[in-house]
């Protein structure tokens, strides 16, 4: 029953992912284009929408805390990939990057 419950949860989760897989539109919630954006998209969407990523503004230290937390949660990120993710995140979603209208 435990397993059944878990599977039911998984079914719904994947249903959500599939049914909502039309890319999130609107500049405020899109990942900016840039080197390794696909790596970010692939890794982060394993568990949550990239809109959650796109609304953050953190420096490298802040981002590394977040990414390391996700690795601790089980995100399959290699050390080299971690570096690529952090470089993308601090470059395109760093503290100095403007926050688009509609997100403030």
């Amino acid at each position: 029953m435990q397993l059944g419950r878990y599977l039911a949860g998984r079914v719904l989760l994947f249903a959500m992912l599939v049914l909502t897989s039309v890319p999130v539109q609107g500049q405020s919630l899109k990942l900016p284009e840039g080197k390794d954006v696909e790596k970010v998209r692939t890794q982060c969407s394993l568990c949550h929408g990239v809109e959650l990523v796109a609304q953050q503004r953190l420096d490298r230290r802040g981002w590394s805390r977040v990414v390391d937390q996700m690795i601790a949660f089980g995100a399959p990120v290699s050390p080299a990939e971690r570096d690529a993710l952090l470089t993308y995140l601090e470059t395109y979603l760093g503290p100095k990057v403007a926050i688009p209208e509609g997100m403030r």
Partner: protein
Amino acid sequence: MLADPKAPDLSRRSFLRTAGRLTVGTALLGLATPLAQAAKTAEEQASGPAPVSGKERLIVRSQNPVNLETPISLLSSWITPNDAHFVRCHHNVPVVDRAAWTLVVDGEVERPLTLTFQELKAFPRVTAVRTLECAGNGRSFFTPKTPGTQWTNGAVSTARYEGVRLADVLNRAGIRPSGKHVMFNGADVPALPSAPDFVRSIPIEKALSADTLLVHTMNGEPLPTMHGYPLRVIPAGWIGAACVKWLVQIRVLREAHDGHFMVKAYRFPQAPIAPGAEPDPTQMVSLTGLEVKSLITAPLQNATVPASPLVVKGVAWAGEEEIAKVEVSIDLGRTWQAARLEGERERYAWRLWDFQWGAPEPGSYLVMARATDSAGRTQPIEQAWNPSGYLWNVLDRVRVNVVKS
């Protein structure tokens, strides 16, 4: 999930990874449609994410997990309608079959229980109005920025709930003297089995308070799916994260639960720290009751109004305390005038307030509101920065442009 959240089961985990992929096909067959997004028109696609079905008027902060913010214009009534109540989820939104659902009560109890919905409903019925606010409401205002859903002001709402007292259920199970905390687990599960499940606990004193409820009805309707159908706990006046949804298990513990959402998340530095500083994790305390806070709901930010008498309106709440007064300033905080507390009143529910602003001269004004509660707490002019951006309660301010009438 019902499993002991601390007990890893590697074989099950790897099985689920495979099973997860297989379920995509099942999902495509339309097993789970309630959460489907409405079809998007080209116009919607250009302007932003599609609204979530049943919550079309809310701002979508994220679709997965579902995090929806209420626009301030919808917070002007004492009771927030269900379709306007904010939503905060940590994982998926489980759709529970109430006929098959049971609530397990176990741990440090004399008689573990497994209650059906009918059995649960048979406990003495209680009705109560409760204001719920996400601990991260206002996170987007912090400098430096902190990670998490970037809420502005609208992760707060008020509803009339019906349900039963948690104490009545716990007393039927019989709490052993060793039982000091009560843990709540919902039917939601993390996306990866290796990620922490959303599980929270509260001290036994709060659990046994007559005001801590297990609710099944919200504004006269069965608890909506996104709000925890069929059962949610509401420890009155505490942060939203204490109000665990889709309850399937209540476990009495000897100590506070030691999962991620207790020992890492929803914690606040005991002593004030510099903005951006990294606090010593041993000096962080678990968040409990909400802060004192007010919001101006009219006029709205950057409104243009004619130079004639005007009513400033808002809401104010204070967690476990009661609102003692709300004051308004229209001269940048030099002077403050009392607003009128009005409308219905119930402990743990926000108060509506209004303020008569006599015909201002044309110009641009900053209207500010500041609430004070029965414990003497008042809204600050600057925020105590904290690494996760919790408990923002700086006095509220809206820019109002007054033009010749």
